């Protein structure tokens, strides 16, 4: 079992904050860690890893997820969930950062967990929160996400969808757009393009009323192990299919 196996130390950030982590658990989730701690069979295995460019706060979230899921699976019935961002201890940007960290070190699970936290925060939780609590992605956070992800990223899609829902949502009702919108959108065409692209997929037609819409199910924003598409179906077709059901 990983519990009784060796423990390695990870030093994070410029201040080299130390974490003692069970090597087997860590390596079972990530090729990156696996390569580092188990890579060369001919040499003594590494016992330490330095990640000077990562944020210790994000790594703490990763470790919490790592052990949370490990124990939830081994007996506990509760599935591990991150706490919703509260703006103080943990923010929306932290979860975006966690998502990016997950991408970099290749841990799919933590990426999905980060998506879940934001999904709940902007979606079901926001509806329960009452009319005055208007939640929408800060466009500087969106820019942060776009700077550190590839175009097919689910995080991009989630954030863009919520930005548009805010734009057309009832809660805003004619209030002016936040200043960040101008600042970000005038400089970053990629984000604006992503918004326009999604809007065009909604297929609104002038003269008809705008339909009431809901964000797609949580799972639609999760990453899954790659399964090859059935033969005969061009990859493009599949993409179109999923996108027509988008955000309805």
């Amino acid at each position: 079992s990983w519990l009784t196996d060796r423990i390695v130390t990870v030093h994070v950030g410029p201040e080299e904050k130390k974490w003692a982590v069970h090597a087997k658990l860590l390596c079972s989730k990530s090729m990156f860690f696996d390569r580092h701690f188990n890579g060369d069979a001919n040499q003594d295995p590494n016992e330490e890893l330095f990640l000077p460019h990562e944020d210790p706060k994000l790594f703490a979230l990763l470790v919490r997820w790592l052990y949370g899921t490990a124990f939830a699976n081994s007996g506990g019935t509760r599935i591990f969930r991150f706490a919703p961002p509260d703006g103080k201890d943990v923010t929306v940007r932290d979860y975006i950062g966690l998502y990016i960290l997950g991408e970099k070190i290749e841990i799919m699970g933590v990426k999905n967990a980060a998506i879940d936290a934001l999904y709940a925060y902007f979606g079901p939780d926001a509806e329960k929160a009452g009319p005055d609590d208007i939640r929408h992605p800060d466009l500087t956070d969106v820019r942060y996400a776009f700077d550190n992800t590839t175009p097919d990223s689910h995080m991009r899609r989630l954030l863009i969808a919520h930005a548009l829902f805010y734009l057309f949502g009832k809660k805003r009702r004619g209030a002016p757009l936040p200043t960040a919108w101008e600042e970000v959108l005038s400089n970053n065409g990629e984000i604006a393009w992503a918004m326009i692209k999604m809007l065009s997929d909604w297929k609104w037609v002038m003269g008809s009323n705008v339909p009431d819409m809901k964000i797609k199910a949580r799972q639609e924003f999760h990453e899954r192990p790659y399964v090859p598409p059935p033969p005969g179906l061009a990859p493009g077709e599949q993409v179109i299919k999923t996108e027509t059901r988008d955000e309805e």
Partner: protein
Amino acid sequence: MSSRPSRIRPVRRPIINKETSEFEPCWQTIRDALVDIHKQNAGRLSFEHLYRTSYKIVLLRKGDLLYERVKEFEEEWFRDHIMPRIADLISPNLVNVAFVQPPTASAHERRHMGESFLRGIRDAWQDHNTSMNMVADILMYLDRAYTSSTKNASIYTATLGLFRDHILKNSLGTASTDREHPFLVFDILNAVMLDLINLERDGHVIDRNLLRTISSMLEDLYETDEEIEHQKLYLTVFEPRYIENSSVFYRNECEKFLRDSDASSWLRHTRRRLMEEQDRCETTISILTSDKIARVVQTDLFLSRMDEFLAMEGSGLRSMIDNDRLEDLTILYQLISQVDRTKTPLMVPLQSRVMELGLEIEQTLKNTDFSVPATGAGAEGEDGDAAEKGKSQTLTAAAQQTAAAIKWVDDVLQLKDKFDNFWANCFDKDIMIQSAITKSFSDFINMFPRSSEFVSLFIDDNLKRGIRGKTEAEVDVVLDKAIVLLRYLTDRDLFERYYQKHLARRLLHGKSEIHTEKEMVLRMKSEMGKIFTSKFEGMFKDMELSKDLTDKYRDHISSLGDVDTKKIDLNISLLTTNNWPPEVMGRNVNQEEGTKLECTYPSGIKRLQESFFKYYLKDRSGRVITWVGSAGSADIKCVFPKVPGKESGPLSKERRYELHVSTYGMIVLLLFNDLGDGETLSFEEIQAQTNIPHVDLTRTLASLSIAPKARVLLKNPTTKNIKPTDTFSFNSQFVSRTIKIKAPIISSLSKVEGDDERKETEKKNDQTRAHVVDAAIVRIMKQRKQLSHTQLTTEVITQLAGRFKPDVSLIKKRIEDLLVREYLERVEGESAYKYLA
């Protein structure tokens, strides 16, 4: 590394220069790392740092550029650092070894050069492989985010492919173009490997591990970067050449063996080569080849000239069989069953050899002179009896024939043992071979016209002799074998006839143990069915009933207190006509002479018969008893009075003997009771008084007046034959050392039939067959109503297969007969018949 289907869209960023300016320093970092890795200097590199760098490049959308740069770097590295070293190893001598046949260099030289070249390739490959593993680790994110979303091969695959394109498929510039045929490094590699393997085949020791490493290298490399399983370079390039080269090698070897050696060592050599090649696949090249190379050895070394080897004088298949070369046959069987599931190449010669040997037995039989049995047959235990009988005198013609019959069966059984031994020990109890051998046995046995009779005689002999000499277990084994022979016989009805005859004699004369007899019949029953043995069982039943009846009758007589019978003790065998052979029942005699002949019994006997008949009818009215004089026997107490004038020796005393004779013998002897001293009776007189059939009387008189042991009658003249003109008188001078004397009962000796008898038997058998065929035809037609001629014939043959193989002409004749008798009628216009109810 898998990922969701995704697309990389062209970058739309306002500040393009930023990306390019950030890429170059990152690439420089990676490039420096690549150099370190190749120089095996990777210890000082930080994996995290390099990973982050390549991650950054991918986020900058420069994955494609990184991918190309890495490949360019590797190509450059091959050109500048690897190829020069390999080119150095390819000396002109090595090229000669590879392309000039026959090789001019010595084996040692070739091996040395070849191995150092292979070592160079191996080292380059191993270094490259290790390096590329590290590179793939560093560029893990590139593979995940960039390579997998494009159609490109992973960086590891791509860089391994470079080894194929830039090392193996390198044409070496001038070194190769100088020659007539340009060549690649790969060609030399192949040639060197094949040369080394051939050296090993010739008995040299080579570095197997080295070849194994090179082989797995070729297994790890593919024709294209798509890495399609059957396009491994090992399979596409090396293996075909290896197979071709081996084929040539083994063809030559086969020719050499055919010239210089014999089949036995050829078989052993083939087996050894097969094992060597298997071993080679496991230790030196690849297990992928093992089936293919086995086929090469099988085809080129084994099959190609197999017929010639098997036909070799003194060591071929014939010699293996004749000299019981079990090991040779075992190897041959194993090799053949590997290449040919039908095993025809083994089966056909086996079959014909069985036939030949079987016919040889028959031939020897004809050429053997059984009149001097001690020479030929005496050596074998089975024929001990024949030898015993012929101790002092030559055997009679009949006894010779019998000995021949037993010898025939014995030889057949020995042949069968021989092939059973092959079958069990060499042929892995192969069912196909068993049935092939069985068929040949059946064929030659049935080609021999007297097989049915001989088998029955053999059983007769063993059952009779089983009582003495042999243990029960031994008899058991012999009888088991006899049953095996029975299985081969097709004319089972003929056998049934003979067996019935022989069994009857044994039973009536108490020649065998009844439980052994029953045991034997039980075995036949399980082998050939109930109908076949029903007559035999009836015979046993008759014997039991008779014993019972005799006992009861004896009790009945003693209860009557009748003293008038002169103490004649009656022991009766009451035989049901149908169960017993006609010869025993005296029926054929009646048939021949057309009248019912009853011999005249003396009055004392006659009274006894009447008394018994009366007793018998008390419980069973309406039955008829026929007394068969020819089948019975009698114990007679006789007194030879003192011979006057003899004062010493046995003749001076009165002598009492118990004489065991046939019933006819008794009747004849009783005649002499009434005769005065010196009076004689002629043959004709005896016949007139007794009414005993001529043949039987001849036999009876012969046993009483010729055989020296029991010569109680004197014959005049004292010739060896009985003639109707002879006269007989009481031999008052008769002396015997034993009290109990057995007059030889000629009819009880089972012997081979003479040619006439034989024809007779066959004729009778054919008559029976005709009836059986009739019955079968009617049975079939009754059920089927209408059948074509061929269908009917086939049906009849199938139905009767268990009993005999009917002649088609016989069936045709019976059908015609049935047509005449209006059981059947022809269907108009076709060759078919209709059943008439």
